[in-house]
């Protein structure tokens, strides 16, 4: 009985020490927390209906008339590499999408993701475009650049929508920022990329 109790105490102390030292030694510190690396693996077009635009003057077969644009979905797949010896939490991920030199969308992921120690996760971020929404971005934030190019927004839209399946123009990721957490520590990784 005596031996059994001593064994139990030793085991308890060992497990407790291992658990606590594990927390203290293996955990994140300001000096060992490295910002994970982000790279754009590729871009896919999971949904595509070709090029068109319906103004509010067009009477629809059903439903209400309005300014409706051809939808197109792009999915941006990123590799997120955690160089740390402990898991890190992705707590915010966003970036702007560029078609050529025009910023046409800002998208992100609000879901929380844990990246295991020294592993690479993949994150898929969908971005939905339509010719109406992209027309507005050309007419507002992109208005000056468009004027400089001397092109009409319709010509630019048609080139993008018909060229997208072949990625006939560069699709860029800019102003990217990902927030990573480990314990109370926070690191923000900036990223940008172009595809193809």
């Amino acid at each position: 009985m005596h031996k059994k109790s001593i064994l139990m105490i030793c085991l308890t102390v060992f497990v407790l020490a291992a658990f606590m030292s594990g927390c203290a030694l293996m955990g994140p510190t300001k000096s060992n927390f490295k910002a994970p690396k982000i790279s754009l693996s590729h871009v896919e077009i999971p949904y595509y209906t070709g090029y068109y635009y319906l103004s509010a003057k067009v009477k629809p077969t059903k439903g209400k008339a309005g300014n409706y644009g051809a939808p197109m979905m792009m999915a941006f797949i990123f590799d997120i590499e955690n160089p740390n010896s402990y898991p890190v939490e992705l707590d915010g991920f966003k970036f702007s999408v560029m078609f050529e030199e025009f910023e046409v969308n800002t998208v992100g992921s609000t879901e929380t993701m844990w990246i295991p120690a020294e592993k690479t996760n993949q994150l898929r971020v969908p971005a939905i475009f339509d010719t109406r929404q992209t027309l507005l971005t050309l007419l507002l934030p992109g208005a000056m650049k468009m004027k400089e190019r001397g092109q009409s927004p319709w010509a630019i839209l048609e080139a993008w929508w018909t060229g997208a399946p072949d990625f006939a123009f560069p699709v860029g990721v800019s102003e990217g920022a990902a927030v990573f957490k480990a314990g109370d520590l926070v690191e923000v990784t900036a990223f940008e990329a172009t595809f193809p």
Partner: protein
Amino acid sequence: MRMRNTLSKVFIFIFAVALITGFSMTAGAATVKVGALNDMTGATSDVGKDYALGIAEAIHYVNDNGGVNGKKIKLYQFDYGYRVPEALTKYKLFKRLKCVAVLGWGTGDTEALSPTVTKEKMPYVSASYSAHLTNPAKTPYNLFAATDYSSNARAAITAWFDKKWPKHKDYGKRKPRFVCSYMFASPYSSAPIKAVKDQAKLLGFEVGPDQDVSLFAIDTKSQILGMKRFKPDLVWHGNTTMSVASTLRDAYSLGLGADHIINNWGIDENLPRLAGKAANGAMGASVCAFYGEDVPLMKTVMEYGKKYNPGVPIEKRTVRTIQAWSNTLALWEALKRADKNGGLGGENILKTGFETLAGFELGLGGAPLTYTATDHRIAGKIPIYEVVDGKIKLLTVVDLKGRWPAKWNKEWLGW
């Protein structure tokens, strides 16, 4: 024997506590959920993206500074592209996610959602500063940390009348002439029309025909020619920066010869960049400090911008960031107060949160916040700025409440 048993039990207890504590540290603390609707791709994206960045940065600041009495805020932020139906859909999502409040955006969707948020007692802090949202008898759950569009328009036309008209060659000989330039179909642009024309009549202006200028306008020559027929001395602009810049450029190149006053979403750091010389002399209200101005919290705002959006150049940041911080910090203060006094139910956030703020300073250059159970206009003093040599400088502060107390208290609330 009993001693050894006791010792064993103590160790087992400590072990269990250590395990539970260890796991609970990794499990995460309680959170308070807040929804945010932003326009980063739609009709107001020229001003909406910077605002959206500011919301996210301000929430990081809130969480770094204790959150809501120890509970971190989880932000659900979405771009709705200024599409009202999508805003309604996202609002339903916020409800399902059990968000305690919403940081909203445009006038169209905010006013469309107003009956719903009133019925569901959802505090809704919008970037729409429409005066239609300031009367708690009608829209009790709509709030914003800014002076409203109608007050801003009344103040801007008053400032021009006080400061500029007396220097005009025709001063004392005739009435000053006034027209409005805005997108008729836009709820945001048209929200303060009735108020600004009422103020024009109060001050003795002759009011000419409105000009319909799209929020997406890059060519407004036909509207400028329309204005020229009336020979206005002053034009009020109700659109956002890009459209206002186009109108100012065309007015300059076609020699309209009028001065310009602008609603707050049309005057920012980008206006002189886009309109150049044509922006000089343009006036308008601002609801807070411009980016980089010397106010107590500006250094912090800029640090958070640099930290959380390192890829966005500082020269792209504008007053919209500060507006976003203002709304977020107002909500934060209300949530903290409500949490300590009965919890985060919508009615409690309104009554023991917002409506207990009296002269509350945010440190962002805006008017101190006061919300009462009968009036959600935060203040009656409105600062009016002017573009001087490409820089935006404070011109004067118009005290609407002090100058027209009876009208302020009895007539002007809610429109």
